[in-house]
């Protein structure tokens, strides 16, 4: 793990990159990284995030600045800008059931090719997917998702890069921290090693590549 400035971290992300961002309606989202993506005008992003938040908040800022060309998400209903950009063909949106979304990312981080889920069988979600019977029950084969970068929000990060999360800000963060080539973390507090007890570490340090330094 290396501590870097937010400017240095975002400079590593090329335009057009695939980027996973933690958070649920903007809660548990690394806002400083999103602000810097906007400032450095990293366009054409392929964004993987549970939802599109709301304009001005969380990943909503990326849509305000029209930096996203492809979105994989479960819900976009509370961000009218994404709906407009989708209808205007500026953003292609792939909607995925939330339980499937998180399992596909988990699979990507755990070396699995995908998962079998009953969710979506017999609906529009099943179109173009393989259906597989196990013990007489139908399941959809949902393939793994990975990204070049995961942008993670943690509550505590120690000097080694061990992470813990708070309340409902945990959501997709620990899952995404396993499913990207480069993992960049914004923590609410950076603390000495040992402050996070071993039983309370959720994301172990070797998974973390960069922590955004204070200041």
């Amino acid at each position, binding site marked *: 793990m290396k501590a870097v400035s937010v400017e240095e971290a975002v400079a590593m992300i090329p335009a057009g990159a695939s980027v996973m961002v933690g958070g*649920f*309606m*903007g*809660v*548990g989202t690394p806002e400083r990284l999103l602000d810097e993506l906007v400032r450095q005008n990293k366009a054409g992003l392929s964004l993987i995030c*549970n*939802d599109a*938040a*709301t304009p001005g908040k969380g990943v909503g800022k990326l849509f305000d600045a029209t930096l996203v060309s492809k979105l994989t*998400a*479960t*819900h*976009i*209903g*509370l961000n009218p800008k994404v*709906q407009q950009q*989708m209808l205007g063909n500026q953003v292609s*949106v792939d*909607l995925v*059931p*939330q*339980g*499937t979304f*998180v*399992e596909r990312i*988990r699979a990507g981080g755990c070396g699995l090719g995908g998962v079998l*889920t*009953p*969710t*979506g*069988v*017999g*609906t*529009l*979600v099943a179109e173009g997917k393989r259906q597989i019977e196990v013990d007489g029950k139908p399941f959809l084969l949902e393939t793994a998702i990975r990204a070049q970068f995961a942008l993670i929000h943690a*509550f505590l990060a120690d000097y080694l890069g061990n992470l813990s*999360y*708070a*309340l*409902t*800000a*945990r*959501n*997709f*963060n*620990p*899952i995404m921290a396993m499913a990207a080539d480069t993992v960049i973390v914004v923590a609410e507090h950076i603390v000495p090693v040992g402050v996070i007890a071993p039983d309370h570490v*959720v994301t172990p340090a070797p998974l973390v590549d960069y922590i955004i330094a204070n200041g």
Partner: protein
Amino acid sequence: MDPQIIIARRVARELRDGNLVNLGIGIPTLVANYVPSDLKVFFQSENGLIGTGPIPEQGMAHPLLTDAGGRPISALPGAATFDSAMSFGLIRGGHVDVTVLGGLQVDAHGLLANWMIPGKMVPGMGGAMDLVSGAKRVIVAMQHAAKGKSKIVAKCTLPLTSARPVSLVVTDMAVIGFPDGKATLLETAPGISIGEVLAVTEAELAIPDTVPEMKI
């Protein structure tokens, strides 16, 4: 009584001691207000919490503690937080006893459509497809009709949420179940006759010999 409150009060009577319950946005959220105080019910918020509590007092909200709509909530003593894989493992894995969701259409076989109106409204399914596929009991809480048009239809014209039928539909006019896969009028709302329900229901309803009035 306000139609939404009739629905919420009736749905609350379906909850049992010890149930793990997921409430959707809208009318379902109101259900928590009418759970009898002697019942211990665990409410899940799918963004990662069991033990959701009321909206915090002015100035006491925590920015990292919200419901699935991003609104500040509180956590009750004994609450537990977890990541989204756990949250949807609970949902899909059959650990959630009851889910209460809103609906756009429910058809004569109990199939639900509640996540998009093609060409008009494409919010996305969020957690709805997993909830309907995985929860032990699925209760739809919705108005019986919208703009005079029945939401209990012969066949859903909107995209389905799941191929699995729901367990129960509670509206401001009736309670409808699906024994043997067929829509059946189980109860009528106070002051509403069977004839009045049938007049605003597109789907064919089976009428048992006795149809009691909803207790709310």
